């Protein structure tokens, strides 16, 4: 994963609350392989009208949206379904950071696992930031080392869980990290199985089917 230290880039304002993962990528696109590029599905039904034509006034259809790599949204961003495809869509579109007052828990950890920074800012700061950006992508600086966001004269401190910050700064991957604990895991598993002998997962043979 590519580490993030600072991002100096355009930020898209998305002044909506409760942008759930069903909106980030509608379910019907999830049977596509990732190789088709999930960026085209990002916020598909907000981006297009009933005739599947791009809505001119939607921020992702702005001529400079494709250059931006930061998204600013309102509360409860990424709530709902655990679909990591929502993060793939953001990342494939070009985003490296989403700034919002709150995130769905599962979305936030999915984001971190794909090198997308979920930066939490207080609601009042988000409103100032949205006002500053207006209706178009505008320049913004996100400094992950200092946990600071700068836009023109505005300077704000954002929060992120320390463990996630370390992972993003270093571009670390969990599987590699965990495999360093292989012996510890094996010891734990052996003790655990001894203490809980009833946990073996074989179905009883005589009555495989039971009541609903």
């Amino acid at each position, binding site marked *: 994963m590519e580490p993030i230290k600072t991002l100096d880039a355009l930020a898209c304002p998305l002044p909506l609350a409760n942008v759930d993962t*069903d*909106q980030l990528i509608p*379910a019907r696109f999830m*049977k596509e392989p990732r190789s088709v590029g999930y960026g085209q599905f990002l916020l598909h039904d907000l981006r297009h009208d009933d005739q599947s034509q791009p809505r001119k006034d939607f921020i992702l259809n702005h001529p400079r949206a494709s250059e931006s790599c930061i998204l600013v949204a309102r509360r409860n961003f990424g709530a709902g379904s655990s679909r990591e495809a929502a*993060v*793939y869509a953001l990342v494939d579109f070009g985003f490296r950071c989403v700034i919002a007052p709150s995130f769905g828990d599962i979305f936030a950890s999915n984001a971190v696992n794909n090198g997308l920074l979920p930066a939490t800012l207080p609601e009042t700061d988000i409103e100032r930031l949205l006002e500053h950006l207006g209706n178009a992508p505008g320049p913004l600086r996100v400094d992950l080392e200092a946990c600071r966001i700068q836009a023109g004269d505005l300077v704000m401190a954002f929060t992120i869980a320390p463990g996630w910050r370390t992972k993003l700064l270093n571009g670390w991957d*969990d599987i590699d990290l965990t495999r360093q604990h292989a012996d510890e*895991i094996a010891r734990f598993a052996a003790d655990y199985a001894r203490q809980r002998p009833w946990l073996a997962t074989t179905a009883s043979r005589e*009555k495989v089917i039971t009541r609903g």
Partner: protein
Amino acid sequence: MTTPTTLFDKVWDAHEIHRTDGGESLLWIDRHFVHEGSFHAFNKLRERGLPVARPDLTFGIADHYVPTLTRRLDDIADAKVRGMIEQLSDNTREHGITLFGLDDPRQGIVHVLGPEQGLTQPGLLMVCGDSHTSTHGAFGSIAFGIGASEVAHVLATQTLWQTRPKQMRLTVEGTLPPGISAKDIALTWIARLGADGTRGHAIEYAGSAIRALSMEARLTLCNLSIEGGARCGMIAPDATTFDYLRGRPFAPRGEAWDQAVACWETLASDTDARFDREVMLDASEIAPTVTWGVSPEEALPIDQCIPGPADQPDAGKARQVCDSLEYMGLEPGQKLTDIGIDRVFIGSCTNARIEDLRAAAEVLRGRRSKVPGIVAPGSTLVKHQAEAEGLDRVFVEAGLEWRESGCSMCVGMNGDLVPSGERCASTTNRNFKGRQGPGARTHLMSPAMVAAAAVAGHLADIREL
């Protein structure tokens, strides 16, 4: 003297393999369910050339894409949908994982099947690449949804890194009025605290009203924890839990059962255990509740009217209400019971267990639905049981379609969709924009309330039927 601990802490501590200085815990996973959406994770394993660490603790379930009109793979017209089901079969076969596939007599929605087969047990740590995994907490296990990268991690290592969440106790005391269900409890607290109101928290549901709930109702309640933003929801196991589990295929038996119960009986929060947050509800004040907007927090008792931007405490909420009303095609001040519906859906991991079907059938018996609709049982076993009780005939005679089990119109991945602009009274869990299909308008409510709406042709108060 040991410090009093919560149910959550007891289960968490028993699974902690390692903790970093930064407070991240490496946790052992007892049960891992994978459905059709897991292909991203299997692809990740393949890219790295890694095996599945514990195929015996992983279970494959076909539910999201399965057709509800047939059980034959060859009958599925959409090649991509068929491909999703085949891919799950291929991935589970390749890694030696038990599969409950499309034609398996035990097939069902993962969160219905797990408990039904006795795979879900007290004190476990369970995960699945699906946010409603919180359902399984009804047995006193820690169960939560994870993303594809985490699914790959669990497949490769049977462990997961997590930070211990904060803890909240939601106590519901008293007796629920007749006709009020777990769905109403859930929509009531979510409306009160907000869709992100319990973000970062594990919830323990407690109190006399919770103890009185059946296993099915507890599953509904825990299922909806995620809709209030919680990491998971759990209920301490008791006689109701043990009675449900006894004799299930994957439940322990004989001496192992006695050992298990002895352990399970210790799984309760100590009397003086401290929670980061305590919330109380009075069961007697809970009314039949429906959603009117596009977030589960936009819910109200059925005898109320649609709110408007002017009733809102701040500009943000006012904006949200305008946006929701526009999508839903509703006006401020309209009575909820005046909202006409175009169809109904009875199904999903929230409300398609046998009790849910019984509750809906009881309302529909001898009556006709004014609108079309689908009933999709939560599992194939639920389907058979319902048929044995004659519930299928009640639905069919009321004019509804009796289908095979699957996620169906909860998410529409199999093609069961609500047409754009239509309004659906639904027993599901998400009224998000486009959840049941592009442009679909969803009103969430209990199975009995959906049945009442079907009979009336508009949202209706079950208490007046």
